[in-house]
């Protein structure tokens, strides 16, 4: 079998956006933060969604996956690959799943019996990295359908950050921008070429120590420390060249792309990135920057924004869509997809 025996496409996607909205003022008002820091003015964020106590990474993943599979209309026995790409794999009780892959548990909960299962770890770029691998496996004929899934139960990072003196631990402040949610994509074979494409993937490892996620000290669950301005500058310094190369690699016309979604570290950082992109490649048709009420949901972030667009009725079958991903490391990767058939009927 040669390396491009088949074409691939996004069959469906879905996000589970928890209902409970926690306003920024409840946990990060000016009075909560050192130096009268105004996190809303700094980030454009208004709050985040919080999962229920019983909803850990596994349960969140299963919810998004069930909707995704239902939308895609694919039989469970036809799914050959399940990849989990959540960063923390945190349960509702703040235990963190380590081994074997959480994907194995997700597959079992869904009733998928014969799939290869593994966990991908590439920070916020884990979702697109996983889809890129699945795309290659489908094009080579190794598999027919892949389910890529992530449940980010990460808002305990906010409590962890607030348990510190933020005057002394300013690198914990970025943890206040996260939110919970989950996402799933079903990738499968396509009759048509060009339905799913990727930029060259890059890791600029000189930035690798700027965001560290690990176990919290003296409390259950995870912690995150971020040199946010240095990391953002690393992205902005390379963004123009990255996008130019991505357009060339995928043979795309920037002006013809209907929808653009970038990884939303915060609405304000998205606007900065948007200005860099437009200065290099020209005006964007629809730049989706609607993360003000969901926050940064890690690997699920693009799909959370896509789901909001679905709910708003903004998307149509066959529309050209670009997802731009940045992850700690620093990983840079873009994915171009045609909107799945029947998306207008999704609810």
């Amino acid at each position, binding site marked *: 079998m040669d*390396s491009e025996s088949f074409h691939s496409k996004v069959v469906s996607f879905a996000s589970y956006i928890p209902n409970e909205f926690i306003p920024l003022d409840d946990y990060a008002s000016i009075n909560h933060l050192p130096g009268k820091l105004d996190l809303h003015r700094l980030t454009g964020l208004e709050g985040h969604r919080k999962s229920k106590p019983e909803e850990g990474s596994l349960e969140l993943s299963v919810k998004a996956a069930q909707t995704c599979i239902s939308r895609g209309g694919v039989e469970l026995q036809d799914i050959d690959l399940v990849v989990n790409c959540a*960063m*923390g*794999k945190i*349960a509702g009780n*703040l*235990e*963190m*799943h*380590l*081994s*074997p*892959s959480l*994907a*194995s*548990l997700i*597959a*079992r909960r869904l009733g998928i*019996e*014969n*799939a*290869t*299962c*593994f*966990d*991908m*770890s*590439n*920070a916020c770029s*884990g979702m697109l*990295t996983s889809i*890129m*691998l699945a795309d*290659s*496996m489908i094009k*080579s004929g190794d598999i027919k359908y892949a389910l890529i899934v992530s449940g980010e139960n990460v808002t305990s990072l906010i409590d962890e950050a607030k348990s510190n003196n933020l005057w002394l631990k300013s690198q914990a402040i970025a943890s206040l921008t996260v939110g919970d949610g989950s996402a799933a994509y079903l990738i499968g074979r396509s009759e048509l070429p060009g339905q799913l494409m990727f930029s060259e*993937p*890059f*890791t*600029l*490892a*000189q930035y*690798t120590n700027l965001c*560290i*996620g*690990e*176990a*919290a000290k*003296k*409390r*259950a669950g995870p912690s*995150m420390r971020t040199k946010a301005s240095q990391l953002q500058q690393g992205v902005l*310094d*390379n963004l123009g*060249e990255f996008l130019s*190369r991505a357009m060339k690699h995928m043979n795309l016309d920037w002006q013809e792309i209907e929808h653009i979604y970038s990884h939303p570290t915060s609405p304000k950082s998205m606007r900065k990135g948007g200005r860099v992109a437009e200065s290099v490649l020209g005006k964007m048709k629809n730049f989706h920057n609607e993360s003000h009420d969901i926050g940064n949901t890690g690997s699920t972030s693009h799909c959370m924004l896509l789901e909001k667009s679905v709910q708003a009725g903004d998307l149509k079958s066959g529309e050209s869509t670009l997802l731009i991903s940045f992850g*700690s*490391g*620093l*990983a840079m990767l873009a994915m171009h997809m045609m909107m799945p058939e029947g998306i207008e009927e999704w609810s």
Partner: protein
Amino acid sequence: MVVIHGWKSAPIGRSRLLKSITNLSKKLIAESSINLNDINVIIHGGVYRKNFRVEPAFATHVQDALGLKCTSMTPNSNHCFSFDISDGSCSPYVVLDAAKHMLRIKSGGFCLITLGDERPNPQSTWPYTPLSCVMIVSLDGDGPRLVNSNYDLQGFDESACVNMTYDDKRAKNVIGKHAVVKSPTKTPDSHFVGEVNWLSGRHMHEFLLQYSPGTTNTHQIIDQSGKTVIATWE
């Protein structure tokens, strides 16, 4: 199908995992016929990292420690792509399968695979003697050739899943208590089967030590959760 051009392994001992993996990688590259810049992809397979780190990928730390293409982007600059993949002790094979596809995506070079685990903290119970194992792989050439790998979830016992849990007495996150499946009493004589309590690096080290060129070699890994992978090599 991927081919192992060269491999090296060593006990982690008292050094940290990153130092162990970086030193092994440097030695392997120095002894091989390739240049450092011929490596386009790094994939790490492992479960346990210092203080249960999950972000960024361990492979990005390896890339940084090797100084591999850590430059700003220009119209013609070459860059590596690095990430981690895991599935308990079956990790070597999901990594090798991913490498096959990444070598197509970032064609014309080699993939550095690193396998290894380290005790997350002194408070965690640690019944393992892990080895670091690094491999340089490509899509063709001479060396052990992975023909296929097949995974089996049938024996997967959820009570044997391993979690990080909080120990109130020690005020530390530690590796939680978990069941371990029993080793099967009978496996085919033609299979090389490791111990259930080996971690990824040791599984590959032991298999490659006894690998016999010119014949079909079958490697079976049974994870302590009961998940199994059977791989065929030539």
